[in-house]
């Protein structure tokens, strides 16, 4: 079978690629501006507060972007392990998204720096023995900068190896069309998923949960996974839609694929709600002070974060749940793209809810700085993604499952 039998344009528009340098500049400027905003707008008696806020904001927005890249990696692995046919035409998008992970390792350096030199700027436990609450003191053998760095290296190693391997082999297949490659990738997907699950779980504990080192929740890794998968499907839908609007990938990605991606997105809206509700219910019901403290930071009236909690229930669950329930919407790709943008916005609210209350009460200045930082980080993500994609075909045209993917029809559900 010859490559690209459908005679479809499957490369990104050159104008997009040209935007990458501009986006990098915009991103860098926004991130720096947000630092300035935090420093000068947020009134505080403590000089370090601006820095503290900036790094919390950086972390939240960093995880915001990294989460859907990790979601993409997991998607690629799962498609191989279950020998999926339908996804052959969209899998390359996920592979390319996952391929930005090595860059995210570079962007993790500021966090490493602040762990080593920050003295509690981002993580309270970096203040070291004697300066932290007694309960945190007992955890310092785990929450130790060097050990933290070593773990981060391991996590990134796992992700980078998986992302690079699955992309390279898939590209090789573009040339050779070899089915052997698919068999090999299927075989490795299982062990990689185990490694992925372990690394994501502990990365969530290390990077996110330890911003409040006294608090703990065993479901935290699953929560982040759910949020990441949800936002990944939104990014995927949006990418495919934008490509099609520019006359690309039109023959490879059909309404059926959009419908399927939308079903997954819908499923993860419900799954995220399930995980978030489970965590809340258990802590609310048992009402143990050291556990509810985390929710007190977020839901007590005087902290100012309570409206965000309610917003998450409405915007992260009720609205998109009802909005993407009808089959007609899931098969209408432009409406669906709107919902994908919506999901990506509420995903930011979710990440904000996880991180920002640790640094203080909500204020307009803080949220403004945080928003600017978000714009910057998203620009950086876009630049990385566009740069990484380059002229790479966005469809794995010679994937042996491609005929399956193209022929496939939804059952009337």
């Amino acid at each position, binding site marked *: *079978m010859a490559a690209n039998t459908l005679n479809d344009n499957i490369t990104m528009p050159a104008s997009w690629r040209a935007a990458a340098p501009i986006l990098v500049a915009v991103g860098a400027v926004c991130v720096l501006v947000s630092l300035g905003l935090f420093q000068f707008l947020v009134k505080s008696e403590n000089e370090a507060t601006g820095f503290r806020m900036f790094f919390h904001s950086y972390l939240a927005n960093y995880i915001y972007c990294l989460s859907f890249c990790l979601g993409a990696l997991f998607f690629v692995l799962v498609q191989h392990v*279950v*020998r999926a*046919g*339908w996804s052959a035409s969209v899998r390359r998008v996920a592979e390319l998204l996952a391929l930005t992970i090595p860059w995210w390792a570079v962007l993790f350096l500021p966090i490493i720096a602040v762990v080593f030199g920050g003295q509690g700027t981002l993580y309270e436990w970096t203040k070291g023995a004697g300066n932290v609450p007694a*309960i945190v003191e*007992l*955890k310092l053998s*785990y929450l130790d900068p060097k050990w933290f760095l070593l773990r981060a290296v391991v996590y990134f190693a796992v992700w980078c190896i998986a992302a690079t391997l699955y992309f390279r082999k898939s590209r090789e297949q573009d040339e050779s069309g070899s*089915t052997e490659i*698919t*068999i090999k990738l*299927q075989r490795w997907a*299982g062990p990689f*998923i*185990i490694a992925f*699950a*372990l690394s994501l*779980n502990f990365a969530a*504990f290390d990077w996110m949960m330890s911003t409040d080192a006294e608090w*703990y*929740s*065993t*479901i*935290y*890794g*699953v929560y982040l996974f759910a949020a990441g998968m949800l936002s990944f499907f939104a990014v995927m839908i949006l990418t495919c839609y934008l490509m099609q609007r520019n006359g690309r990938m039109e023959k490879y990605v059909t309404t059926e694929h959009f419908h399927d991606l939308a*079903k997954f997105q819908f499923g993860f809206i*419900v799954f995220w709600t*399930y*995980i978030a509700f*489970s*965590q809340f*219910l*258990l*802590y609310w*019901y*048992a009402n*143990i002070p*050291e556990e509810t403290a985390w929710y007190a930071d977020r839901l007590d009236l005087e902290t100012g974060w309570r409206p965000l909690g309610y917003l998450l229930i409405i915007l992260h669950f009720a609205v998109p749940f009802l909005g993407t329930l009808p089959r007609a919407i899931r098969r209408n790709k432009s409406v669906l793209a709107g919902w994908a943008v919506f999901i990506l916005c509420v995903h930011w609210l979710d990440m904000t809810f996880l991180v920002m209350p640790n640094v203080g009460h909500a204020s307009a200045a803080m949220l403004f700085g945080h928003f600017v930082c978000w714009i910057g980080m998203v620009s950086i993500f876009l630049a990385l993604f566009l740069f990484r994609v380059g002229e790479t075909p966005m469809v794995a045209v010679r994937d*042996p*499952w*491609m*005929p*399956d993917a193209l*022929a496939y029809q939804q*059952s*009337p*559900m």
Partner: protein
Amino acid sequence: MMPIPTPTKNLARLMSTIASHKVIDNTIDTPGRRSPLVTGNQTYGSLTHMVSRISEEAQPLAWWVTFLLAVPTLGMFGGLIVYLFLTGVGVWGNMSPVFWAWPIVNFVFWVGIGHAGTLISAILFLFRQNWRTGINRAAEAMTIFAVVCAGTFPGIHVGRAWLAFWLTPYPSLNLWMWPQFRSPLLWDVFAVGTYASVSLVFWYMGMIPDLATFRDRSTNKFRRMVYGILSLGWSGSSRHWMRYEKAYSLLAALATPLVLSVHTVVSFDFAVSQLPGWHTTIFPPYFVAGAIFSGFGMVVTLLVPVRALYKLKDVITLRHLDNMNKIILATGSLVGLAYATEFFMAWYSQNPYEVFTFWNRAFGPYWWAYWIMVSCNVISPQLFWFKFFRTNTIAMWIVSIFVNIGMWFERFVITVTSLSRDFLPSSWGYFTPTWVDIGMLVGSFGLFFTLFSLFCRYLPIVAMAEVKGVMSQHAHAEHRHAHSHGHAHSHGHAGGH
């Protein structure tokens, strides 16, 4: 050649069924081309016959052995329940502080097993995993019988079981009061009740077309009448099929979160408390993973003998077993990940009670239960990384038995070790079961196997209509494949005589 028991009008079809019975390894896909899910050159007719004859012919010896062992065991179960009612819950080993002991362990064990059926029917349906069609019927039946077994235990555990109906919010003339909806135990009543009834109706609805097949194949009037009533006059009209399929997918979409919610609510029974070892946020997804794991373990335990006994190797192929074993591997590893997370978080929390509880689990007086659990649930499924274990029926059957044992012990470890070491060392205790406890566990297996044997005897154990749909789909895919490659495959073509 297999022996032909009674000369029937279906003789010709029978002959075609058994014409070629060679084993095909369909566990491997050449990427881009699906292996057939039904092997042995089956036709629609031969498939119908292969499944229907099970309830039409005399049962094999092994069935009688199972049935005649199961019924007295069920009798014993009934006897023990009567003894319990007449004497009181003191006949059990429940003691202070282990108030929730053996019966609750049995309840959670059976409810967990009862997850595979609806999962296979619903979740795998939504994921368009066609291989589910070979096994879903038997798995759903297993689900319902497991839920029956599960429901028995909380029922008899309430002390005055004849007043168990007080759990329902009915307008009581004497009391004029309502149940306590803030209690997770009441959520459990609703969750398990909903699950049992929805699973039952899902199972029955799935069976209607196959019951119609039984009806139409009946040679005597009585059988035709009974299956006729059960199949509600199903005619196979395309309009009916259209609504039926719609209803089926709606039910699947409803049953998927339902399956998750049931074991989630069961986990809430434990997790909303403040007891270390119970109160941890990963419990809901971890219980669900464990339930799927144990459910698939039980499906493999049941179907390996069933497919050999009833010669269903062409419908429940090695690929089906291979896939199930992969799910067992995946969920077993997930459960292992949850154990590890719990253990890590107990240390990370630096809550002395948490730390002690988990230390006590692994190295306290119940260390043996803990290590049985870990080796059966986490280590034994790792054998399924090797294809030999995934495709060798004896090997996988042994592993599945270990999974069943391990999952029982998981519930034992969670329930008993946490309770036996309370906050107050003065009330620590060591639970040991009484003979009634053990008799009831064994007896519940009697109930389960009685029901399952009757199911095999009287009802279609493979969803014939769905398998035929998959056969047709495969034929179309092969057709397409043949076209794209420019040469024809006659392999696996269904429908032609």
